[in-house]
């Protein structure tokens, strides 16, 4: 990841936040629409939860050696 990649991402995030506060400021069809930047938070939290919970379940119950069914 080069610097300009990160710069692009940051510009995009800022653009979405501006759009959210100007164009969508009165949008309230769901309870979470009153939380600013909710989808950014939800996306990041989901990402962490999915990675950690999956790995945890995997280690606890699901991972086996590749030859597990052979014997």
């Amino acid at each position: 990841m080069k610097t300009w990649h990160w710069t692009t991402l940051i510009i995009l995030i800022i653009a979405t936040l501006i759009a959210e506060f100007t164009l969508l400021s009165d949008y309230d069809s769901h309870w979470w629409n009153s939380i600013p930047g909710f989808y950014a938070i939800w996306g990041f939290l989901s990402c962490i939860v999915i990675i950690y919970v999956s790995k945890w379940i995997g280690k606890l119950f699901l991972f086996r050696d590749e030859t597990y069914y052979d014997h």
Partner: protein
Amino acid sequence: MITELLFFPAVLVLLGALVLPLAKQEMRPSLFLVFPLAALATIWIMPDGFTIKTSLANYELILVQANSLSRIFGTIFAMIAVIGGVFAWHIKDLGQQSSALAYGAGALGVTFAGDFFTLLVFWELMAVSSTYLIWAHRTAVSQHSGMRYLVYHSLGGGILLTGILTHLNDTGSILLSSFPETFTLASLLILIGVAINAAIPPLSAWLPDAYPNSTITGAVFMSAFTTKSAVYVLMILFPGWSILIWLGVAMAIYGTVYAILSNDIRQILAYSIISQIGYMVTGIGIGTEMALNGAAVHAFSHILYKCLLFMAAGGVLYATGKSKLSELGGFASKMKWVVGLYIIGALSISGFPLFNGFISKSMIVSAAGSAHYEWVYLLLTLASVGTFLHTGLKLPYFTWFGKQKSEFTVKPVPKNMIFAMGIGAFLCTLFGVWPQLLYNYLPFPVDYHPYTVYHLVEVTQILIFTFIGFWIFRTKLDGNPKIVLDTDWFYRKPAAFTRTILVNKVDDFFGLAERVVHGIAGHLASRFDNPMAWLNPFSTEENNARSYSSPAGTVMAFILFAFLVFSLYLIT
């Protein structure tokens, strides 16, 4: 009747499966494409409400029934048969070519069937013909996997048939129509039978078991037909069944968790199918016009990008002979086209704007929102974060980028494979940029616009922050050379024990019984070999029993005859 059969898409494609062996080998790849193209043409010539009817015993069968929903599914099945045919252009295995066409015929037959009987026939045709696409891989693993697949689907077909017969007994009708939302024996059995093909957990383990073990080209057909034809049948029979909402959400998350854990690239994609079908099942469960439209359009989009992804994964397997993340890495520069086209599929499945996942997945999620299933909305969004994470980031990153994890050479991928991927990528982009092309043909009028500021803000924020999360924790997702237990454990692990109890022990018992009976017979034969030893113990004469057998036989026959005559006399 003969001219009517020309309007029977399934028969057209099945005809291809029968004609192909008669053609010369060089002709077969191009001939392969003719039949699904012809089917595609008939699907679009048939007007709405077109039917072909026949009767069997006292029942009226509707072999073909055209409506907007079956046209959507039929179109995409025929298109995939064509794209798959281009992808498999270099294949010289007649068995694979014929069974792929028969498989496509099965999917088309199910899609246009108007009654349960026709449906079941094509349902079983799919099960049998697709099994060959696993066996044709010709490894010991695929032999076993194919057998498990066949047994599982035979069980599913059996349950479906039982349900159909119960339904017939209850209602006297074999025509397909939606069930009222009550659990009767018939509806439950049919639901289970269809759920097996739709890979709804816990009945889903056959899918990630079989698809990674099928042939490179076979997996492309398999990713399209079986599960999505089951989604179609769910839409016809069980729209608005609320149990499907939560089954669908569970599926979407279940597929995500397993795709995160899997190591084999085609297994990751297989689990990702389960996750994606979760969206469609949820949409069917919600059952509003928008949700059903969403399920149909998502099935269409999903088939396109999933077949593109399977083609690219097949390209990796073809070029390197490897399919495990823990053994790949660091060769993106050697297959730029495949990487680029895969990325288009990955962007589509992740729901990037301008690609077809964006215009279909968001429709189901929005339908959940407008039907006030708020948690369904949030959990489906969570699952789509997972989709971007495993199919969009983990798989390409650890397959092609990073450092090389084992020694392998990279063969060039045939041009026809790249070309087929190109068609897939083009269509993914086309429908993403121009959604009306699809929306105009959906079963219900569409009042939905995917490209709104709200959706663009939502998707951009989610995707960017998922990417940031991936970049921070990416080492956690690297391939782990392990297998992941699924519900197939319940029939694979006890298999040895079951075989011991039900086969080996029974065999041993019969073997023992046989030995005992033979022993007794042998012993008696040797004891009675010299009858004089018993009749006249004082004689020393050696007499062989065989010399007595014909006079003794005559006496026996007379006794029996007298007995017969006497009993006849008693009866009369």
